[in-house]
């Protein structure tokens, strides 16, 4: 147990539009049965990190609901706990979390009362699979103060570099410069939203910068201290993505139609764990046809489904056609409907003969609980 974990799951995510009107980005449904935070949580749990704090603030209801029990991710023991830190008012503090660094600072006791050497900080809206022990080895071997994980953009990746923090590194993988969402990207090393800090040093820096009213991990620690501290960069070579807008949300879900991605996330141990739904097997009635799609349990299908992601307990009526769409939990689509290039948020109900048609450039996004 060399590390404790912190998952930042409290940020506002405006670019996800109606999908985050009632949920935090970390609670976004992914891959037919997961929520985004399952990836960070499972990676920590699977790497033997036994104490993890989740910091929530914005729209935290649905996230708290998902985290109703720690045992699904193998936490919830005397020696392995999950902490949930939401902002609170006390005599000494009247503020919401004013930034990522402030959010951790307001819960500094969690760091102070631990004895582990390192702190892994991850964002709740990133989709990846990693053994953190390898990264900690790298961090310790290099005597780093901080290690940042980055993803290298390769030609056919759809990442828009201007949306990300970019790392410039030297030949030893030491950070030279960090550009936050630059207009003229000079590097293709995308910051992956994961940091390793040495715990003692993180406490010290947080106390210093907060006394100067600075609240952000990136601008106030990484960028300001980039020369003073030894900040190393570790490349994640496996799949990595982030839910930073509707297009990336759509793309990440469709990545699960790719066999390699499914093999990596669904069929290679250790698995990504999620809150169990205990739904029965999915049921395909006589006229159900399903091509190149993933389907969650508890669903009942009568119609045609192609190139789509169906979450749990979806109902598809007779003569209905669903193509290139994401249909979240508990949607009910009646008979003779057409759904194309659409994202239906949870519990959308379409009565018979309805059409929801978007295009690949302009997806139709239907908010939670809509009824047509």
């Amino acid at each position, binding site marked *: 147990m060399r590390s404790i974990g912190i998952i930042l799951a409290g940020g506002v995510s405006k670019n996800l539009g109606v999908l985050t009107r009632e949920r935090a980005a970390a609670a976004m449904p992914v891959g037919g049965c997961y929520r985004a935070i399952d990836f960070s949580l499972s990676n920590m749990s699977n790497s033997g990190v036994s104490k993890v704090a989740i910091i929530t603030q914005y729209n935290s209801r649905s996230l708290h609901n998902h985290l109703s029990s720690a045992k699904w991710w193998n936490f919830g023991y005397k020696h392995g706990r999950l902490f949930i830190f939401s902002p609170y008012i006390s005599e000494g503090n009247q503020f919401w979390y004013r930034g990522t660094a402030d959010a951790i600072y307001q819960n500094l006791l969690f760091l102070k009362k631990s004895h582990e050497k390192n702190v892994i900080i991850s964002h709740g809206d990133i989709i990846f699979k990693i053994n953190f022990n390898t990264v900690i080895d790298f961090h310790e071997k290099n005597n780093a103060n901080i290690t940042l994980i980055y993803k290298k953009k390769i030609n056919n990746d759809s990442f828009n570099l201007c949306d990300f923090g970019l790392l410039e590194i030297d030949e030893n993988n030491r950070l030279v410069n960090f550009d936050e969402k630059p207009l003229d990207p000079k590097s293709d090393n995308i910051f992956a939203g994961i940091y390793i800090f040495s715990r003692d040093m993180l406490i010290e820096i947080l106390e210093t910068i907060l006394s100067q009213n600075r609240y952000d991990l990136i601008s106030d620690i990484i960028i300001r201290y980039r020369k003073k501290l030894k900040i190393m960069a570790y490349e994640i070579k496996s799949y990595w993505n982030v839910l930073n807008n509707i297009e990336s949300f759509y793309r990440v879900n469709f990545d699960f139609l790719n066999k390699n991605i499914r093999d990596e996330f669904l069929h290679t141990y250790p698995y990504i764990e*999620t809150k169990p739904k*205990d739904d029965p*097997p*999915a049921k395909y009635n006589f006229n159900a*046809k399903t*091509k190149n799609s993933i*389907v969650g349990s508890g669903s009942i299908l009568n119609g045609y489904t192609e190139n789509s992601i169906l979450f749990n307990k979806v109902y598809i009526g007779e003569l209905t056609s669903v193509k290139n769409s994401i249909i979240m939990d508990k949607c009910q689509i009646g008979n003779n409907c057409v759904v194309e290039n659409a994202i239906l948020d949870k519990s959308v109900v379409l009565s018979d003969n309805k059409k929801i048609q978007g295009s690949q450039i302009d997806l139709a996004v239907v908010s939670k609980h809509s009824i047509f």
Partner: protein
Amino acid sequence: MARREIIAMLLAGGQGSRLGILSKKKAKPAISFGGKYRIIDFPLSNCVNSEIDTVGILTQYQPFVLNKHIGIGIPWDLDRPNSGAVILPPHLKSSEGDWYSGTANAIYQNINFINSYSPRYVLIISGDHVYKMDYSKMLEYHRRKNADATIAVLEININDASRFGIMNVDENNKIYKFEEKPEFPKSNLASMGIYIFDWSKLHEFLILDNKIHNNSDFGAHIIPEMIKFKKNVYAYKFVDYWKDVGTIESYWLANMELIKTLPSFNLYENFWKIYTQVEYQSPHYFGKNSDVSTCIISEGCEIYGKIYNSILGYNVVVEENAIIKDSIIMSNSIVKKNCYIEKSIVDENCIIDKNCKIGIGKNIINSSEPNIYNSGISIIGENSFILEGLNIGKNCVVSGELKKENIINNELESGENLIINNMI
């Protein structure tokens, strides 16, 4: 001391001998059912859904799959301090040890366990049956009738009555006579093997009967004796789905009922969920050239072939151009390219290599065990490897990791067995 109003004792030691190879390495309650479930999930889920939080599970025959499945009871919310799921195997006493020699004997041997909760009532159920039942309603009935014992009964066809324990009741449903498998049944009320007892009364009769019979049984001894001693024994009529999947054919049929558009057993209810232990929670995938009609499919499956009228457990792989019809493929099995499987049961963790055909040819009854394998269904036992290109007929049993020398002509005629014991 932890005290409970009611605790459940679940008899899970059944061998299920008419299920042949399916119950060879696991007790009947551990056999897969409905894709992702095991039979014991139904009574266990009924317990938690009926707000019973203490369940003693009595195991004896091949308990390992069962023990692992139940663990500390997490999926059923039975991981609780001072109660929850407790596995109770036969054990040594100070001077001697005994196997569980009968249903009531098994409870007799665990009197101390039950006493430690000082329950008012004890519910006795079996791990062999598929049904959804609210035991709290039965308990309410038991209390209302001021009964010493209440037996759940099912109205069955009178022609089948000589295969069951039959209750003869008066107009108040009080049982005045119990007949075990009567030749000339006078009633069509069959015991479902579900009993609620006042613990003090049951305690008394268990001790009494143990002095007379060394294989004390509820149906044969305890119930008839309670009636003889004029105790208040009532029948509780249950009107819903209940199945004892005792034979290969009834097992197959009960599974096949689940794939009907409106199945008589509904797994899709929100407020009476059936819980189980699954390794996978991930969705399943259908490939570009796959086809499906009238099936139920569990988590994590990858389907590139064609499946019709079938049931798939979790994490099953069906490769390109494989065709599966009227079959049950249990969890973690792989059906490779170009296979054809019809009316067969493939148990857990099997690999069916390329170009195999299973369940083809004439319907000839099994030559070595005609009483068990006679309904046209072929079975591949758990952990088997079926060699590329093998043709297997109907009513066949194949088990083990097959090697080239085990097979002549790539052919196993209908009604033949091929059982390789190369595993412990």
